[in-house]
């Protein structure tokens, strides 16, 4: 009995993933939970475990391909050893399932050759002979001028859509080859084109912007396909930029008191498997601030004209990786001790480094902290991680001179930048939040920290 195994749901709002590697071959026998393929979603790279047992009769995916949850990825003959279902495919080569997996970096099938150079019509010299039978024009004649309407990639079949849909797509400036069809077999209808257009509007990086100049006239260029991570970041930051009236306030806090706390709980943290860093302490204080200022731990629902106040405090930490920005989430920060948080933070940092974060660990943040401290930045203007309403940027924590009772002293001072959505939070409230946080950093003892020792 041939059984189709479909790509399982990958989590909320995840509608597609890129196949990075196919880990099985046709004819392989697989068991439940055995990885079938490695896929990259907007948020993480994960292995897809099999939900069935049997011999693989057909693989429906290939590296570089984009798949959606529910798509058949392999067909398995559950009766192991029984006659394989007759493959109806003729000798023509099937999808690229190779014994040696293609390199990880293999880009998704390039859509098109770079555009031909812009028109620079060379006037025909008067002496040019009239084309007669004997005259042969070199085959390498330059291509036609760059068109106003985007050309379909050379050699591509017409899109899986009716001519009226293709025309509509051109009229509204959508490349139909980029549209995901929702119809049977992936056929594209007019609604798919409209949906794609709406998505594009929210993604200025992919469309709706004027055509680029031909850079080759200035020098050599190289084109790199955007990774899914990059595309996701592009989309979400553009959403923030275009949708959120953002205000950023700056302040500086004396973090000298952190030193004492760190010394006191260092051993406890280390016994728990963590390291008590300034970042962990700051996170704990931010968690407390969010309980004090609930509108910073919220989401604006414009459709229903409501403010959604989160009754939990999950803090996302923007982490720089070689794959791009990743934002793991530490849960229930307000309920955890600094020792617990230190251990949690260590665990999540290790998994970020190993690229082993689960989707679950990157979802559900209600506030984000972005730190550029180690890169020597002081103040900056972080972008809110929509649909959150505020973000704290942490800059350098350096020795700075300051006057204390008319005496010049040197203190460790931490640069804080608070960006927030002005639709939800007024400037003065932002200032209050920041002042509260600065005071808490000055006197961390005002927090319920001693519990952490237990």
């Amino acid at each position, binding site marked *: *009995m*041939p059984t189709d195994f479909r790509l399982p749901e990958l989590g909320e709002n995840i509608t597609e993933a890129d196949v990075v590697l196919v880990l099985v071959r046709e004819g392989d026998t697989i068991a439940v939970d055995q990885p079938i393929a490695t896929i990259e979603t907007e948020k993480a790279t994960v292995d897809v475990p099999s939900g069935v047992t049997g011999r693989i009769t057909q693989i*429906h995916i290939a590296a570089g391909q984009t798949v959606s949850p529910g798509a058949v990825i392999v067909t398995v003959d559950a009766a192991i050893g029984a006659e394989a*279902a*007759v493959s*109806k*495919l*003729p*000798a*023509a*080569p*099937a*999808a690229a399932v190779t014994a040696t997996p293609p390199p990880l970096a293999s880009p998704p099938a390039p859509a098109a050759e770079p555009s031909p150079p812009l*028109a620079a*019509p*060379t*006037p*025909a010299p008067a002496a*040019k*002979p*009239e*084309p*007669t*039978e004997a005259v*042969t*024009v*070199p*085959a390498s*004649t*330059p*291509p*036609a*001028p760059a*068109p*106003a*309407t985007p*050309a*379909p990639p050379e050699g591509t*079949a*017409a899109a*899986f*859509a*009716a*001519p009226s849909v*293709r*025309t509509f797509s*051109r*009229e509204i*400036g959508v490349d139909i080859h980029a549209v995901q069809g929702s*119809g*049977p*077999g*992936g*056929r*594209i209808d007019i609604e798919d084109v409209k949906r794609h257009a709406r998505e594009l509007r929210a993604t200025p990086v992919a469309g709706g912007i004027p055509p680029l100049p031909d850079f080759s006239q200035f020098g050599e260029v190289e084109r790199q396909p955007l990774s899914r991570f990059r595309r996701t970041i592009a989309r979400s930051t553009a959403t923030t930029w275009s949708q959120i009236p953002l205000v950023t306030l700056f302040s500086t806090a004396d973090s000298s008191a952190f030193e004492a706390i760190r010394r006191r709980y260092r051993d406890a943290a280390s016994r728990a498997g963590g390291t008590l860093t300034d970042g962990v302490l700051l996170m704990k204080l931010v968690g407390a601030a969010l309980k004090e200022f609930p509108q910073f731990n919220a989401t604006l629902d414009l459709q229903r004209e409501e403010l959604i106040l989160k009754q939990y405090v999950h803090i996302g930490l923007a982490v720089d990786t070689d794959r791009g920005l990743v934002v793991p989430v530490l849960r229930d920060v307000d309920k955890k001790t600094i020792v617990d948080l230190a251990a949690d933070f260590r665990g999540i940092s290790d998994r970020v480094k190993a690229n082993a974060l689960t989707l679950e660990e990157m979802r559900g943040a209600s506030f984000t902290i972005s730190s550029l401290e180690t890169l020597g930045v002081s103040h900056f203007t972080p972008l809110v991680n929509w649909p959150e309403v505020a973000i704290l940027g942490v800059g350098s924590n350096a020795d700075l001179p300051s006057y204390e009772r008319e005496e010049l002293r040197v203190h460790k001072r931490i640069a804080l930048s608070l960006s927030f959505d002005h639709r939800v939070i007024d400037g003065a409230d932002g200032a209050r939040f920041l002042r509260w946080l600065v005071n808490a950093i000055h006197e961390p003892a005002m927090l319920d920290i001693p519990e952490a020792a237990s």
Partner: protein
Amino acid sequence: MTVDQPLRVAVLGAGPGGYAAAFHAADLGMNVTLIDESPLPGGVCLFRGCIPSKALLHAAHLIEETREAAAWGINFAEPEIDLTALRGWKQRVVDRLTRGLGALSRQHSVRYLQGRGHFEDPNTIRVRTDGEVTDINFDYAIIATGSVPAIPAALRLNSPLVMDSTAALDLPDVPGSLLIVGGGYIGLELGSVYSALGSRVTVVEMTGGLLPGADRDLVEPLEKRLRSQFEAILLNTRVAELAEQDGRIRARLSAADIADPERDFDRVLVAVGRAPNTRNLGLEQTSIEVDSRGFIHVDHMRRTAEPTIFAIGDVAGEPMLAHKANHEGRVAAEAIAGQPAIFDPAGIPAVVFTDPELAWCGLTEGQARERGIPFEVSRFPWAASGRNITMGRTDGLTKLIIEPGTERILGIGIVGVGAGELMGEATLAIEMGTRVTDLHLTVHAHPTLAETLMEAGSLYFGHSPHYIARAPRP
């Protein structure tokens, strides 16, 4: 040029590409001049191509049917053919259609200018009519000058006995024996006409099969029937030389093992292909680029390297078919009007009007193999078609080329009586992104040949009621 003034568009060539472009451009509000050497629009298609050949083929099929009718108990005497009257009827068909186009030009407010056009610069065409010279200044021009029969130098003989397709359509006489050089659609169609009229036809084809480009399983039933009608079909054979001798043509044939390479014929038709008509148009006065075969380089909007000039139809590349030119004409006119038009058909049907007809659209099996495109095939033989049997026929085949996984129909090939008319449904299916299921679930009238499309669809799922080919799909 201001916004208030309509764009001035000159269309050079009034064939099915040129007149379509001109009419559409005029309908879009442009000021259009249509230039052609003929007194009326129509081009090769109407004057010396599609239309006269189809009229003659219609007559030929009638003759063949009267011969076959004996098997059905109806006996006709051998037909008496009045060539003058037949030519006259063919001409009336042509006249009726071309006069209609002349009237349509006026109704579309297109200015028709008879004469030979020549580009003087990227904004001017000089038109010469009987010594009179008119300069047409244009904002945009569309080149639609079509193609002419190609005759290799070795076969170019200054003799009326050696004809191209234009001469053959004039039907000068019914030669006792006729050599046709080229086993493409023109050779086979005209061969069918002359064979039905009584000529002993010999077809010589240089490649290993008739109708290069078509799938072999479709060609096979046609070739079988033609072999029974024609004197000979010689494949892998070249005509090395032609010479006129005592009022006949002696042909020297060249092939690996040919017993009698020297053969005499009353007439010869050279039908080895057509060449784009891009010479002597003054293209060198523009930036237009022409490839080694004479085709003009165009982009997907049919714009040439000269931004003010578009090219459509046979001059813009293969396939050299009237309906492709017609659609390109529409695209070019809309592109000039600033609309986002591009030429991106999912399939362009091709029809060979022989008996049986052979037609296909979209991807062929041969192309799929060549390009390594994964595909599945479903074939329904017409021996299982009730309609075909009622016409006294058992030959024919309907074939679907299907994309695995999506079930999308990528190509359809048909050989059989009336296959050309079935291309309507086939092309629509391909253009609309039809899946096999859709074809299979659409009620088709019974008994018709169109049912074979539905049956081929059903067969894909192993459920054809009239033909058992394989185990049902799970």
